[in-house]
């Protein structure tokens, strides 16, 4: 049933491809975080109009499957005259989608910060932007560490979908191997193992981070 030589042949290819998976996930996470901060600021702002915009953003990007957003980025941007490579379209879609999910997580964190902290920051004369960067974001990060790690694991898994637009990450490479060797089972099992490995490492690091920074 299993073919050991396929394993040996596929493993290096998948390991190489996992760099792309990690690259896209990390970039997606960082850009997504920037989007999320904007979304949260809008959602928690005093202006009702901004709040509505933030909530609408969250609803739209959480309500549509990532696969569909990916296709939209891939097909929609060129019609606007922006020609992008599949990789850029994939990163754009992942970041925008991740912005909505991270935004919901951060919202909880921001609401968990005692009101007095922000008042104190105002008293010592910090500007609103400074308060956000120095006081609110670090504490929100601490409060939401477990959910953020969970979201990172979900993001690694979600990045499998970008194989659809042809980015050569783990899943795409496994598809290519399956097509050229006619051994789909081995190829996809190795791909699964690679994801388990990455997520296993992430979750161990996450536990460490929780213990290290988790106490707010």
């Amino acid at each position, binding site marked *: *049933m299993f073919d050991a030589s396929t394993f040996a042949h596929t493993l290096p290819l998948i390991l190489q491809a996992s760099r792309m998976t990690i690259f896209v996930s990390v970039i997606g996470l960082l850009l997504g975080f920037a989007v999320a901060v904007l979304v949260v600021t809008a959602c928690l702002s005093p202006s009702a109009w901004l709040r509505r915009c933030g909530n609408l953003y969250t*609803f*739209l990007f*959480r*309500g*549509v*499957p*990532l*696969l*569909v957003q990916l*296709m*939209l980025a891939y*097909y*929609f941007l060129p*019609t*606007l005259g922006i020609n992008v490579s599949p990789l850029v379209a994939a990163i754009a879609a992942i970041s925008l989608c991740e912005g909505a999910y991270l935004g919901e997580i951060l919202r909880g964190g921001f609401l968990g910060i005692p009101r007095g902290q922000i008042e104190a920051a105002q008293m010592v004369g910090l500007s609103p932007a400074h308060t956000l960067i120095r006081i609110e974001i670090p504490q929100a990060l601490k409060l939401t560490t477990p959910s953020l790690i969970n979201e990172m*694991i979900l993001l*690694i*898994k*979600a*990045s*499998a*979908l970008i*194989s*659809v637009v042809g980015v050569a990450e783990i*899943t795409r490479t*496994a*598809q290519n191997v*399956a097509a050229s060797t006619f*051994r*789909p*089972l*081995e190829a*996809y*099992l190795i*791909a*699964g193992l690679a*994801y*388990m490995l990455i*997520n*296993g490492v992430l*979750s161990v690091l996450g536990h460490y981070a929780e213990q290290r920074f988790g106490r707010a």
Partner: protein
Amino acid sequence: MALDFSVVSQYGGQILDGFGITIISWVGAVALGMVVGFAIAVLQLFTGRWIRAVLRVYIEILRTTPFLVQLFVLYYGGPNFGVSLSALDAGVVSLALYGSAYFAEIFRSGFLSVPHGQIEAADCLGLSRISTIWRVQLPQMLVIITPALINMIIILSKETSVLSIITVPELTAVLTQIGSEQFIYVETTLVLCVCYLMLVAVTQKLGGWAELKASRYLQR
């Protein structure tokens, strides 16, 4: 750039069929996934260390690998271990298995959330273990886990779009095909977005109602 939505009326029948398949695979996966997940959670309560370890591995494998890869293993790799399923069957089964791992964790957290004294009290009253679960633990934990269950159900509704990759003729597959036949990708993808948003919005509304239903016994 002008958008032309006449496709919707032109291909209305096909789009509705696709929507039907999406709903069927979603409902099938949720039902099957919940049953399997509940069974796993209950088994974790009753069985010894070894079976619990096996169940733990099952849950972790399904939770740490992408659904797309699981789908490929079952659909393309399945014939290697003697499981040949149609695209729709493979889709529903793998979506159900994927969901079952998450449902199992939700139910397990629910079981843990019911205070131990309740179970002891039920024991003292002479309730059997099964009816303790059914009559005492389940109603109390449902209040706590309903939001998580609804959340998972919504996630699965969006995950059905992935089935289009193994050629299940559901909503995403139908609309992308129309798009590539007519060269109108943007309109079809926007229609697709609206369909999923409607699905999610309706599920959210129903979920709110279910939450009220589950917590009804708490209100006097």
